[in-house]
């Protein structure tokens, strides 16, 4: 059985204009997509800016309201849940964002940043236990435990992304949504983070949805690939097949745009 099953998902945003802010139109950000993610797999979601890939990721974790369709996690339909019923799933599903400069609160120390999800999901945990857990997480993502009292500005882009990953891992999730986790990083740092994600997946038996516009990274990292364009999935299948024998013209265009060395 699949871990996540998305059926006919639609996310439409109203466009409001005029003095009275009447709804005059809709943006069809995600327009009827279906896919499944098996436990333990890594699924790539590729497409250009505006294709709806990030909106899909956010809809799964409940950051965007869904217009229609269902998102089944194991046997629960997430799209109909209210905030309090959603809470246990927030623990199971975590997200890592693209820009490590904007996604970490600059006024919080590393201990608070990584400890915050623990406070919410494990309120009974003592302060010292939390601090110990944060140290452990820092080691797991390849940072020194000494950095626990520092602020985000003291870290480089790659190190900040490691903090973002540690924060996502804090509550021992089963499923991670990685929204362009390496797009803002140097190629050399990108390789380190991808290797780290691969190791963590193995170690904690995680399932990934990897959102990216870089096909070379997806080919390397993902078993299965979905290609999105204008809110629709235009092609999906095993990564090797999609990239070697693309059936859709849009997929071919994406492949051609990758610079060759």
């Amino acid at each position, binding site marked *: 059985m699949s871990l996540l099953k998305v059926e006919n998902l639609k996310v439409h945003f109203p466009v409001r204009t005029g003095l009275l802010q009447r709804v005059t139109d809709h943006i069809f950000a995600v327009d009827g997509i279906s896919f499944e993610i098996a436990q333990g797999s890594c699924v790539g979601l590729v497409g*250009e800016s*505006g294709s709806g890939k990030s909106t899909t990721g956010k809809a799964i974790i409940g950051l965007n309201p869904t217009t229609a369709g269902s998102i089944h996690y194991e046997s629960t339909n997430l799209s109909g849940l209210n905030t309090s019923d959603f809470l246990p799933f927030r623990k199971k599903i975590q997200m890592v964002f693209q820009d490590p400069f904007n996604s970490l609160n600059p006024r919080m120390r590393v201990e608070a940043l990584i400890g915050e999800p623990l406070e919410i999901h494990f309120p009974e945990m003592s302060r010292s236990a939390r601090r110990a857990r944060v140290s452990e997480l820092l080691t797991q993502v390849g940072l020194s435990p000494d950095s626990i009292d520092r602020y985000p500005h003291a870290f480089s882009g790659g190190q900040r992304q490691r903090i973002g990953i540690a924060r996502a891992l804090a509550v021992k999730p089963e499923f991670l949504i990685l929204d362009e986790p390496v797009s803002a990083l140097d*190629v*050399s740092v990108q*390789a380190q983070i991808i290797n780290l994600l691969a190791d963590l997946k193995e170690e904690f038996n995680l399932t990934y949805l990897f959102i990216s*516009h870089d096909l070379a990274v997806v080919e390397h990292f993902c078993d299965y690939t979905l290609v999105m364009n204008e809110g629709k999935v235009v092609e999906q299948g095993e990564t090797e097949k999609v990239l070697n024998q693309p059936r859709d013209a849009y997929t071919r265009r994406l492949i051609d745009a990758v*610079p060759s*060395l």
Partner: protein
Amino acid sequence: MSNKPLLNVKDLHISFGQVNSISHAVQGISFKIEKGETVAVVGESGSGKSVTAMALTRLLPESAHCKITGCIQLEEQDTLALEADALREIRGGKIAYIFQEPSTSLNPVYTIGFQIKEALDLHRPEVTDQQAEAERLLDAVGIKDPRQTLNDYPHQLSGGMQQRAMIAMALACQPKLLVADEPTTALDVTIQAQIIELLKKLKSEQEMSIMLITHNFGIVTGFADRVIVMFRGNIVESGPTDEVLKNPQHPYTQALIDCIPKLGKKQDRLTTIDYEKITG
């Protein structure tokens, strides 16, 4: 035409900070850029590549206690010795910049047209019909409806279109050298390919030199004539692009090429840079 290079940088040192905490961002580099040549400066964050580009027109903030020594010869002038007024002529006029993030380099409260005309005002006062010239420039960078776009504000354009508008602004001054500092890093792969194609086309039309700054060897192929590889404030290797890519001499260059995942060549693990091996 003289055989003198357009830009000749000799023994450039750049440092920041005061007595107790000086960081040496650039440690004595020398390079030349010929007329009409495209040179790529490749290196990671912190290698000193952007700082070098900014130093060409002394754009580095004074508040950072920045100290620049050496010689930067642009045609006949030494830009490091110039007064503020003369320097302003060069900024934009002879050396124009496009930066990584178009959304932060454009002024959000002015229209694209206003910003292009502002550049024309400053550097080409002889242009009488600014509206027509601005339209022509937007057309040259591949914007489909130039007249409409002139009235648009930056937020109404996509990232790729904003970068095109930035390039149009840079071209408005007819620079001799265009410094493109990570011009495609914030953009999608498809848009990246379009912008690189555009720069190639413009270069051959306008007879300008381009200094491309990037961390990604991927976009250098087929674009740059020569490559300069920087590592921790020094140039570790330079030469014709094909030669450097095919037969890199320095271990850092090799490592930088190896760590890029290549389509069609799936690896079990991505190669990462072993800095200890490089620095010995």
